[in-house]
């Protein structure tokens, strides 16, 4: 049903429609509205046969999900930022055990300095944990990806993270089509586990594995992701049959025909990028964009094809690998290793900094003119940075960097609801 609603609320309703059996949650901004929404639906008896467990940490949240999933129940949790790091050990464990848990990430920066606003550092920290990572471009896609995520996870027995931009999506009110129970039931069969704790057929799960088999186990984790590479578009197609709209898939290309400069990005910023592309196209520039929906598995072949005609690839990414540059760009460079196309990194939107159309246009034009450095920080305040570098040179006991920069900006720190 089409309605004007908050992204988090719509996702909560989508989760409920997926008939989870165990939901565990620990609060962290900007994930809170999602789990509150699911919790309210469970408490009101709107989710048949479901338990909502308030746990003492994210580490426990995912651990409870691990236990529930191993018992054969459909399990869900959600987190963000520090919470994802706090559960880090269990994130790898859930994937290693092959448990099809679905988890929402309300993408948020990671401290220090503590920051509640959006970027992708949290999800990127777990990119190689063995989870499938799907990034939603819109709230409609966030809703749809969750429904697809359970099917994908359970088919492959592999956990799936659905990543949606904190605040930009989680807290945005817009028109969203939340499907009906009948539609979801037609698309998502009940969970039929490949392994389950059952006294009638006892086996050990999570045993010690030595060098004699560890590589093979890890290889199979890789192979599972390669299978997902095939299944994600197929599931997207089935989804379209049932729900009548295209959602998910590996990548989405936008006006890439004949484009010389192509922007690549994950998540909601693609909306802004498309606007910029439209404007530049109108002015005759040969530009286009590609949105990556599936970051893990990484769709190398699809990206190679989508970027085949480009002379410049500009990766707009909301995370930073200090000492290297861009994480997404590194992955794309690997995909394009047989070409000589330059791949630029634009680090943008860190800790919630707005990514403006004018700044985006500037970098795309600079790339077209061959004036873009390999790694560019969008709208970096060079003055503030240089001031701080100089100050730190002058005195050993320079004090805390973040606080100094804020003082220099003549602002007092605005602390949100951590």
């Amino acid at each position, binding site marked *: 049903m089409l309605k004007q609603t908050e992204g988090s609320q719509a996702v909560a309703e989508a989760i409920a429609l997926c008939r989870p059996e165990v939901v565990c949650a620990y609060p962290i901004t900007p994930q809170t509205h999602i789990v509150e929404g699911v919790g309210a639906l469970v408490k009101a008896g709107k989710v048949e046969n479901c338990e909502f467990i308030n746990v003492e940490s994210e*580490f426990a949240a995912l651990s409870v999900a*691990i236990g529930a999933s191993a018992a054969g129940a459909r399990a869900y949790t959600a987190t963000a930022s520090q919470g994802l790091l706090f559960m880090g050990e269990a994130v790898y464990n859930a994937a290693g055990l092959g448990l099809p848990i679905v988890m929402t990430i309300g993408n948020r920066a990671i401290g220090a300095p503590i920051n509640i606003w959006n970027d992708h550092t949290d999800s990127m920290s777990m990119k190689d944990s063995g989870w499938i990572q799907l990034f939603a471009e819109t709230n409609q896609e966030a809703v749809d990806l969750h429904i697809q995520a359970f099917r994908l996870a359970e088919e492959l027995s592999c956990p799936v993270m659905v990543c949606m931009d904190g605040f930009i999506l989680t807290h945005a009110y817009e028109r969203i089509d939340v499907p009906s129970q009948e539609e979801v039931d037609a698309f998502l069969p009940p969970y039929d586990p490949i392994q389950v704790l059952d*006294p009638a057929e*006892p086996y050990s*799960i999570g*045993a010690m594995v030595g060098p004699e088999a560890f590589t093979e186990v890890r290889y199979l984790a890789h192979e599972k992701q390669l299978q997902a590479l095939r299944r994600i578009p197929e599931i997207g197609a089935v989804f379209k049959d049932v729900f009548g709209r295209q959602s998910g898939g590996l990548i989405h290309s936008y006006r890439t025909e004949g484009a010389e400069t192509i922007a690549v990005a994950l998540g909601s910023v693609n909306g802004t990028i498309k606007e910029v592309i439209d404007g530049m196209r109108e002015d005759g520039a040969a530009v286009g964009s590609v949105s990556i929906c599936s970051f893990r598995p990484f769709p190398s072949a699809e990206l190679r094809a989508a970027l085949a005609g480009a002379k410049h690839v500009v990766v707009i990414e909301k995370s930073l690998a200090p000492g290297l540059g861009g994480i997404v760009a590194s992955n794309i460079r690997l995909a394009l290793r047989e070409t000589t196309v330059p791949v630029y990194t634009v680090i943008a939107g860190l800790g919630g900094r707005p990514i403006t159309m004018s700044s985006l246009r500037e970098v795309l034009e600079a790339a077209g003119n061959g004036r873009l450095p390999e790694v560019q920080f969008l709208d970096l305040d060079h003055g503030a940075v240089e001031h701080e570098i100089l100050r730190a040179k002058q005195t050993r006991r320079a004090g805390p960097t973040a606080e100094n920069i804020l003082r220099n900006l003549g602002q007092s720190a605005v602390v949100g609801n951590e």
Partner: protein
Amino acid sequence: MTDETALQRVKFYQTGTHTVGNRLMNEARRSVQASMDRSNAITSGHRACQGCGEALGARYALDAALRASDGQLVAVNATGCLEVFTTPYPETSWQIPWLHSLFGNAPAVATGVAAGMRRKGRADVRVVAQGGDGGTTDIGFGCLSGMFERNDDVLYICYDNEAYMNTGVQRSSATPPTARTATTPAVGDAPGNIFGTGKNLPLIAMAHNIPYVATANVADLHDLEDKVTTAMAIRGSRYIHIMVPCPLGWGSASDATIHLARMAVESGLFPLFEAEHGQVTRSKKIRRRVPVEDYLRPQRRFAHLFKKGHEDTERIARLQRMADANIERFNLLGEREAP
């Protein structure tokens, strides 16, 4: 205590051994292990050290739980010796469904299993979570406290060998004062672990007001089984803390495991008691009180206390005072019940 056991009272003790003879007992009162068709959670062939108290404790505890649950049992295991020595795959010793996730999350995983079972219409399947003292009192403490606080339907068993054994005998918050471990070496003015540290998990468990808390010990396997059986008859969070000597970590003879476990109880250092909803309901009386020295001396981890010519009498006395305080607190002397 039944009339019958009261009648048999004298006969229970075989001269010189202090063990309760299975053969002399009423069949219903015999240990699970004595039965031909005993439940069997862990088969032999695992890789524990000779004389491992943890292997013994786990087998008795889980067999009792298996029997109490009519075979409908799942075990969740924290990382540690028990996990490692039972499952160098494909040689798993577990005859029941068993799940190991991480070192610090066994209580939460068990909560999840219990919830999952309920949702799958299998509330008859009972869940036991288990871990070593390190996994329980240190790294898994947050998850355990959460599990207690929510009163989740799990029996958690801690096998306390008083150090991180699996990684080579390092200090945990259950390591007693003066004990030598790899991280509390027997050097300096006060060799071994220091006084004034550590935590008492059974008391902390009681502070959560959960329905059942008990301590047990591998020297009294009947008592251990009874406590597991009692715990299994209750729904909600239950905690059993079992002292399990570790020949490797303690520097004790592998045939001294039972003896040391008994000395720990008889000296008062390890009180055996049960508590319901935060109140101690029963304590097991000391049968023949011994000085702490009888417990400490056979263990090389305490050897520095007994150096020839300069015994550390002051710190031995301090350990004795700890034992005396336990005896007082848990009322460990006085009239004993028949076993």
